[in-house]
């Protein structure tokens, strides 16, 4: 047994033990689904009360600077996520009154950032989490490619990282649910497999047709995302882009990228072949002239 496989075995065992100790419910539910289904978070904006508990919990579990959540003045302006705030709550004035919307990484099924990354530092885990690793070379293509403008770069650090929500990947490995879901006092956020979340979202829409807009944002957007949103108003009223389309972003570049190797391999061969074919004739004609 080499060092690599040894560590793998130890790691798996440790994760399993930690998982079963930490949250038996989660790990039991997970055992048969793990590595087969994407996990996700369903955000029900009709339940969100804008208390910012998720922002605080996010900062706590990820070791980020703790925000002062009693300060509600920050809700006056629309905020973006930053390298120190992986989730932010924005307030929108809509047809149905004030709506609070938590904004964070959508964890796309086929993530643009993962496909754009040259060194596989961005990775889509089998459980659906989109994570970042330290082999990043700092090209920031992930930031350019993201349709939701989520990955953020630590410009003021000497060894900068790309920072964004990981859907608490480290906690997931310990068998825990994401910090924001645990902290939410109204269960506006729930954590589960993407399939079960979609079922729950649709159940809520069917049972309360007057309450919900019958669109689940993230079901099809950009090929589907692990973060799903429910709303009482059309999504363009609460800061969501409606121009994203249902095509997974990697699909746009796939055709071109797959063609590149063929161009590099076949083009020299064709040119060489043509060169060879013409070479003889050119010699003949030049010899003939002489």
């Amino acid at each position: 047994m080499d060092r690599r496989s040894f560590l793998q075995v130890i790691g798996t065992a440790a994760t399993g033990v930690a998982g079963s100790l930490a949250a038996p419910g989660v790990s039991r539910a997970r055992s048969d689904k793990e590595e087969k289904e994407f996990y996700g978070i369903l955000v029900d904006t009709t339940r969100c009360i804008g208390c910012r508990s998720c922002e605080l919990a996010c900062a706590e579990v990820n070791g980020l600077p703790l925000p002062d959540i009693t300060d509600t003045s920050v809700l006056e302006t629309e905020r973006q996520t930053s390298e120190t705030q992986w989730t932010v709550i924005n307030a929108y004035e809509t047809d149905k009154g004030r709506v609070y919307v938590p904004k964070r990484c959508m964890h796309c099924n086929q993530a643009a950032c993962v496909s754009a990354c040259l060194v596989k530092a961005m990775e889509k885990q089998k459980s659906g989490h989109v994570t970042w690793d330290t082999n990043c070379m700092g090209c920031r293509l992930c930031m350019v490619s993201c349709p939701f403008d989520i990955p953020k770069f630590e410009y003021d650090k000497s060894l900068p990282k790309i920072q964004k929500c990981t859907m608490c990947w480290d906690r997931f490995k310990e068998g825990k649910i994401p910090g924001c879901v645990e902290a939410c006092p109204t269960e506006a956020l729930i954590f589960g497999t993407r399939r079960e979340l979609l079922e729950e979202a649709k159940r809520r829409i069917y049972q309360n047709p007057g309450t919900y807009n019958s669109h689940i944002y993230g079901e099809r957007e950009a090929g589907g995302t692990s973060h799903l949103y429910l709303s009482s108003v059309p999504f363009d009223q609460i800061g969501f882009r409606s121009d994203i389309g249902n095509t997974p972003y990697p699909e746009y570049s796939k055709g071109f990228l797959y063609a590149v190797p063929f161009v590099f391999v076949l083009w020299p061969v064709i040119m060489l072949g043509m060169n060879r074919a013409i070479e003889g004739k050119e010699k003949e004609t030049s010899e003939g002239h002489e």
Partner: protein
Amino acid sequence: MKKTPLVCLFIVIGVGIFVLLGAMTELYSGVAVNDYPIVVTDVAPLNTLEEVPISFYHDKHVRALEEEGCESCHGRNAEGKYLFTYPPGRDETSRRSLMDAYHDSCIGCHDDRLAAGKKSGPVTCGECHVPREGTGWMQPAGMDYAVHHTHEVAMNQQCDACHHVYNEKEDRLEYAAGEESSCRDCHRDVTTASGASFREAAHFGCVNCHMEGQQRGEKSGPIACEACHGKAEKGPVMVSADIPRPDRGQPETILLSSDDATMKDVSFNHATHELTTNTCRACHHETLESCDQCHTSRGDPAGGGVTLVDAFHNKTSMRSCVGCHNSMKEDASCAGCHHSMVDASMSEKYCSTCHTGPVEGETVATYMNRPIDLSAILPDDDIIIDVLEDQYGPSTVPHSAIIRNLLDISKGNRLADAFHGDDITICAGCHHYSPPEQAENPPLCRSCHTIDFNPEDLGKPRLIAAYHLQCMGCHQKMGLKTDDCTSCHAAKGDVAAIARKEPGQ
């Protein structure tokens, strides 16, 4: 301080001038005017307009043409009554003919007045065909019970002044007592064989009558647009001594029955339902016929294919019993409990609320059933929720005060009296899904709602969420305050400081 009397004097003079000017304007104009434009929409043959629809300033024209009179634009019939078809030479045979009729009439007049050196209007395309502000003021005019009663009194109960039927044989209008219907019954959206369009008939009938009254110097109705079109239709008019129920010989109570029915008949109190509507049309469409005239048990084209059962039970139509009753749950005093409730339809008790068979006298009160005296089972003490106490202190729930408040709201409401059945129903507002036999001793919230998040039951919120959703949901729907955490549970010291504790401490 010396200046004070002087300032006061100036103010008094200023106000005086202002009032005087206002009064003069009113006198000068003769009729009440507004300068809000009317969007010209009766151009059906031009269904796709190339230009922006005209925003027409009717009252500006009234003022400008005061000398010339209404004849400048409106034709008159043989009896001298004004016609409301515009332009007078309206020709709807083609797009071109209708467009020309409008252009000839409007631009022609403007041109003539310009030539005569009078004050005139625009003559180029872009001056009329422009979008204008303030076109949204216009509401469809309608006659609710109160307006109808005003006319009954003014016309000295002469129904034939307005109501008529068309005698086809003799080609004339005549009054048929007891067959009075809604104007819209014959006068539909467009002019047909059964009558002129509602738009035309209403203006012809109402405005001419009002004008003639004014000319005779009698107390009469208004002729300015905004008097009828200016305000939205009012809410339900409670029929009182001032506004008696419109009498068309309708019965007080009706036994709704059908030969095909398998359910018991419904004893329907027509009189009490009149209290909750402001027009007969609210339920009867335009016809004022009984429901089963058009809604047959198999569905009939005359009833839009809607069967009799659906006509009474459709959940979304405001003309059906169930649809209208359901909409009442959205009222702030009802929505607090009802917003989170599972739809109660299809239960035996739900159906039997209306399907009682023949009932003598007051329909609702007869089967009201109040067997339970809540005071016997109500805990008088406040309930203290401290199971999740952490950053905030315990929350005190004024249990009996809440119930008494809900009972007060419910008892004043006839619909609630009928459907709540008994007082214990109130408990289900919070204690949802409790088994009926457990009604007097319902399970605790935490019997079902677990303290930790349960990923295997995503539809059931955990305890903290259940409390917040239930309490705050009801408060929001009832328009009560929800924005401050400490109004329910006191913060233990500085919440921000507690929240900032290091993880794991």
